[in-house]
Structures are given as C-alpha cells and as structure tokens.
C-alpha cells in the first residue's frame, strides 16, 4: 500500500501546485458553506426577534403558593400603570395555571413564568416567544399580539407522563374590549 502511494508520488501523477490549488478551492467552498449557515442563524435570529433571555431571576419553587408574585391571587394578566400587560403563569406537572390568559391586542405583553416542579417549555403559537421554564428561575419574555384570536400555548419541553396533554391558551381580544373585563375574567377566559 505504502509502496504504491510512494510510487504514485514519485511518478508525479498530480503535481504539487495542482494539489495546493485544489485544497485552496475546497477550503473556500467550506468557508462559504459555514458562512451561509452562520448567516442563516444570525439573520433568522434578528429577523424573527429571537433573543435569549438576558435576565437571571431566582425564586424558591417549593413556596410559590405562600409568598412572592406567584401567589394565587396574583396569577393571570394584570394591567400595569404604564398600560402594558404582565401575565404571570405557573407551569407545573401537567398544566399551566391559569389555563388561559386574556390579553389585549397591539399592547406590550410581558410573560413571567416559573415552574413548580420540573423544566417545562413556554411557547405561544405564531409569536417570537420560546423559552424554557426552569424550576428555581423566573422566565421573563416580552412580546405583543397584533391580531385578536386564540393562540395555543403548548408545553414544548418533555416534562413527564402527562406532557402531551399540557397546553394552555392565550386569548387576544381587541384593546377596548379588554378594559371592560373583570379581573377574574382576565384570568380564566370566562366559561370556555
């Protein structure tokens, strides 16, 4: 085998400059492919406004119901003084609480989620939101909804036996309709 290769080299079937040129050509081809792939990642990230969470906020998952902002009476969507909306949701095995959140259209919405047990996923259909909900941390995601409608919000991180049935909804209503809702209607979408 080695003899054969040596013989070929000695015979000079492929001259060295040709080899160098070929190598350089393939190096450029690979660099171009790598560049295209990185560009796809960067451009989709910028284009669809996908950005990693920049906040690190910690919370005790065992005592969510006793203290802090995730007590029962504080869950659901809340109107902030500046007109934006904050939606607080607990992800737990195997549901989101509340099951359904009402938010107004064309308004900045901040989702604040945390997990009571294991890692869950937070994703609202046709928005730029997609984040993990990790026990011990608060997931803080900002978005806004342009058109009214019902948006599905499935758990997209495998969390155990009941994962496949873990899904909630976000109901987006026109801005003027939202003002007339009672606080409990904002939290559970009424009777649905």
């Amino acid at each position: 085998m080695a003899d054969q290769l040596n013989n070929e080299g000695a015979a000079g079937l492929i001259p060295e400059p040709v080899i160098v040129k070929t190598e350089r050509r393939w190096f450029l081809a690979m660099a171009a492919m790598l560049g295209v792939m990185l560009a796809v990642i960067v451009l989709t990230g910028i284009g669809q406004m996908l950005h990693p969470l920049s906040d690190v906020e910690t919370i005790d998952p065992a005592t969510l119901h006793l203290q802090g902002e995730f007590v029962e009476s504080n869950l659901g969507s809340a109107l902030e003084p500046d007109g934006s909306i904050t939606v607080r949701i607990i992800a737990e095995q195997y549901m989101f609480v509340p099951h359904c959140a009402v938010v107004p259209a064309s308004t900045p919405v901040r989702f604040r989620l945390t997990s009571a047990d294991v890692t869950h996923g937070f994703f609202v259909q046709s928005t730029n939101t997609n984040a993990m909900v990790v026990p011990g941390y608060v997931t803080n995601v900002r978005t806004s909804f342009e058109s009214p409608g019902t948006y599905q919000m499935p758990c997209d991180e495998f969390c155990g036996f009941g994962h496949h049935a873990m899904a909630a909804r976000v109901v987006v209503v026109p801005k003027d309709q939202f003002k007339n809702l009672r606080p409990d209607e904002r939290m559970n979408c009424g009777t649905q």
Partner: protein
Amino acid sequence: MKLENGPRLHNPWGFIVVAVVSATVVIAFGLGFLLLPRYQEPRAPFSTKDAVYHALGFHIHGKAFNTMQPPPKVPTYIAWTESTIRQATIGDRKSGEFIATNCTACHGEKGLSTQPWIPSLAGLDRLVLYKQLDDFRSGTRLSGPMSAIAQSLTSQQYADVSAYFASLPGLPENRGERTPRPHSSYRNRDPVQRLIYAGDPKRGIAACASCHGPGGYRIGAPALAKQNELYLEQQLQAFALGTRANDMDMPMRTIASALTESEIRALARAYANENANGP
C-alpha cells in the same frame, strides 16, 4: 519554510492574541452586564451597580416588577421542602395505630370506609394524609369534624397516624407505581378511560393517571383507585366550584373546572370501580 534564517525574535502573534482576547472580554462584559440589563428592560431603570447585580442573578427586581401585590390567598400552609417531607415521614406506626382508634367510627375499621361520602384511607401515601390533616387544622380545607380532630393533634401525631394508615392494605399505594398500563392510550374506545390514561390535549386536560396513578405520581396527590365514588364526585365538584381550594398551585381547580358535569360523574365511577391492577 525557510528555517535557515533562524526563529524570529519579534513574533507579533502573542501580543495580538492577548489584545483580541482582552478586548472580547471587555466588550462582552460591557454588553452583558451593563448595556443589555440596563436597556433591554424598558421599565427597569437600573443603576450601573444594580445592572451588574441583575445580570449576575441577584435579587434586586423586587421593586421593579412587583407592581401588583394584593393580599395573598394561601391554599395550604404546607410546602414540600425537605424539612416538611422529613417531618411527614418520620411517623411511628405503633403510636399511629393508637391514635387511629378515633378514626374508625367514620373511616372504617381498617381504614376502609363504608359510608360513601367519607374517603377510605388505607394505603394512602403518608405525605397525602399529613398534608390534608394540616390543611384541616389551618382551615384551608373545610370539614367540621376533621378540623376539630386535627386541631387536637400535634404534627408528630399527624405523621404517626399517616404512617399507620399508609401501612394498611387497601387502596393501592401510588408510590412506586410508575409503569403505564397496557391499552392506556388514545386508541382506547372508552372516553372515560381515555381521559384517565391519556387526558384531553385539545382542552389541555392532563391524564388523571399521570398524577394519581397508576402510572404517574405527583407529590401530595392521592391514589384514587377503589376510592368511594360519592366522595370522589363531591370533591371534584368542590374543586370545580372552588369551595375546596387547598390544592397547592391550583392543579385540581384548573382541571376540575374544565371537566363537564357528566365527565365528573363518569370519572368518579370509573376510579371507584377500578381494581389495583388497572381497569
């Protein structure tokens, strides 16, 4: 490669590498700790020091985010911390048996209740029994006789009596029941069995069995197989109406209010008639 000139004395690459790495570190620090935490949050006017703390994960968000603070409505005073779990599981079975003589009039001789609206306790998980006793004491779960009894016992006695009932044969213990049953899928023709084993993803209703067994287990969730039918039905209705509200983080109120009246009845019947080895 021209080695005859000898190694070069002034190799610029060492300097270039150090400069590039330090510039990267400085720029990354500025972006990650100063610029992004400060300007990505429109309603969080952080000082430089707070911005660095925030990016590092320290608790400074209290005033920035907790704009809503109505008085908390506490569903239960139990939290599944390590110390609570230890306290609930160190019970002595023998002294629990003595305390349990007070329970037999309603909950049956061996923890198997004959009255349909009173639950059987035999074989229930210790943590389940301990939590319910504590909830009766604190008034987060309402029942006249049980509140009075729970208030007359200490938390050590809760653990004792829980250990006794957990040791009795009867309802299947859900600890260790971690294997799904055969036919527990969407292909099951019976809609009630489908709800128990597969849930209803369209309505976001998780399978009962993923927390109450057989199959899954969630801390604080009782095994339901062979439980009294009327008791199950009444509890599901109470959760749906919110008259029973001692479920930590609201799982049962969420699920029960999504169920229809006939589903509640059918589920109670199905669980009551289920044997320990599945349907």
